[in-house]
């Protein structure tokens, strides 16, 4: 009886309760992140096909990736192209629309919802299927374009140069959440700054460049980091819409990792795929670090 009471008292202490409440995360982090990561780090030094026991081969996977794997370089190139074009376009779109929608009218709530809706459902398989259907040679995109440009009928969007653009358009279309973040920081800008600028005779254009844009740079930075990471990891949509085709021109990095681990034909190369995943993690960390390094060069702080 006394023991029970002691235990309850012990549990009631703040320093103990803190761990009790954090327990889900502590267990989850160990079970679903740390252990799998350590496991995969080990297997990245192995030849491993899941069926048979892993065989330690040292740095062989890594050496092969860098010296003898054209698809790896191709996947890296495709992913960078997608990230370098898609991310800035998305953030610029988000900013422009946010500036337009910052004006408060009776319909503003409705407008925001309409521009944000694609982001809410954009990750679904339904939208991937829809995108594939819309950009087919006989699909609705060509049908509409042919009204304006009669020569364009049957343009093949899924050809080697343009297939990646189908995916870029899809990601830019989902600028909604960046837009909402811009809108909320626009609201926080002190009105008096604009009034003062007006008194000084600065026009709207000048106000934008001298007040709005500098004050938004932290938000621009945040969105850039977020969206860059996201675009490095695009998987579902490319898997469903193009599956890396044609000729690997839309072979995103994560898709390549997946294909190595779960090939349609032949043996799984889990060890090799683990090494690829680790390289990806290092690349993402490096890109994030680079973005953070560039931060004090252009982000305004007061």
């Amino acid at each position, binding site marked *: 009886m006394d023991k029970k009471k002691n235990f309850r008292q012990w549990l*009631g202490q*703040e*320093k103990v*309760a*803190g*761990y*009790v*409440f*954090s327990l*889900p*995360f502590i267990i*989850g*982090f160990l*079970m*679903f*992140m740390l*252990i*799998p990561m350590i*496991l*995969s780090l080990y*297997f990245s030094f192995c030849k491993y096909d899941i069926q048979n026991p892993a065989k330690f081969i040292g740095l062989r996977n890594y050496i092969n990736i860098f010296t003898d794997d054209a698809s790896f370089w191709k996947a890296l190139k495709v992913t960078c192209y997608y990230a370098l074009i898609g991310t800035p376009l998305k953030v610029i779109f988000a900013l422009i*629309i946010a500036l*337009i929608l910052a004006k408060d*009218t009776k*319909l503003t709530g409705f*407008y925001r*919802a*309409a*521009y*944000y*809706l694609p982001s*809410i*459902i954009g*990750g*679904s*398989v339904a939208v991937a*299927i*829809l*995108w594939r*259907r819309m950009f087919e040679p*006989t699909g*609705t995109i060509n049908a509409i374009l042919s*009204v304006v440009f009669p020569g364009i009928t049957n343009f093949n969007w899924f050809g080697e140069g343009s297939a990646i653009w189908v995916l870029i358009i899809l990601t830019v279309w989902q600028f909604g*959440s960046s837009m*909402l*973040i811009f809108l*909320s920081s626009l609201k926080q800008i002190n009105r008096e700054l604009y009034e003062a600028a007006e008194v000084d005779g600065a026009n709207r254009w000048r106000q934008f460049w001298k007040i709005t844009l500098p004050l938004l740079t932290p938000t621009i930075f*945040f969105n850039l980091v*977020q969206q860059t*990471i*996201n675009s490095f*990891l695009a*998987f*579902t949509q490319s*898997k469903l819409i193009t599956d890396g085709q044609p000729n690997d021109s839309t072979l995103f990095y994560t898709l390549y990792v*997946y294909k190595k*681990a*779960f090939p349609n034909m032949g043996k799984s190369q889990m060890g090799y795929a*683990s090494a690829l*995943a680790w390289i990806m993690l290092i690349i993402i960390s490096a890109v994030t670090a680079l973005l953070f390094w560039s931060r004090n060069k252009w982000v305004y702080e007061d």
Partner: protein
Amino acid sequence: MNMKRKILDLIYHILVLCGAFIMIYPLLWMIFSSFKPTDYVLPTAKQLIPSVWTLDNYKTGWKGFMGYTFATFFKNSFFISITSTFGTLISSSLVAYALQRLDFKLKKPLFILVLSTMMLPPQILMIPQYMWFRRLGWVGTYFPMILPYFFAIQGFFVYLIMNFIQGVPKELDEAAKIDGCSFYGIYFRIILPLIVPAMITSAIFSFIWRWDDYLSALLYVTKPEMRPISLALKLFNDPSAGSDIGATLAMSTLSIVPATILFLIFQKSLVEGIASSGIKG
């Protein structure tokens, strides 16, 4: 002057409306096309409103494939999304309370770990987790798609709820403590009832993300009767399943109904949730 203002306002609204129409045009096209006879969908691709309306696509689509109707797939998706969302809410709010309100030694490092899980996306964990779950014998079960969410593994939700708890006056905690309430009592009686808005926002995001999760289904679902809607739709669209465009669009339309309804009802809290802690979407 007044006249000029009004005209400018009108132009503004027309332009913004046109933009909004372009934004949701793909979705409108999907919805309206699903009511066209399936042979008309592509030939009349540039016409939005069907000239002949039909429900045939829904009837043929619902029958599904390989002996399972879409009722099965929807049921599976609801089961996975609801249970994993429930787990996310409970575990994330417990952890958020500890990290926001309690004082203990490893609080700081734990908080940093939580933030770093936001930077560590599921695609990177795909291969490691698959190997681990395979060892645990979980491939072919729903465990990989549900159980992890009972352990607050998505830093985004912990962070979102933490921000919200910050807004709950600390005096309430203090008063309860004086009345003899333990930390566990404070969480259940004071914090939990006051963070309902953050829980709603989290629930909706979690539900939609679990509903759309195609990657896990692809990796872990092996039996046809266990397929969630995301995987089923993909297979339904494959040429091997007949690839009936009308039926595919009809089932695609149905599959986005839950997310769209949630969005329309809780629009305001979603918008605020994104704006305040701004991640993903």
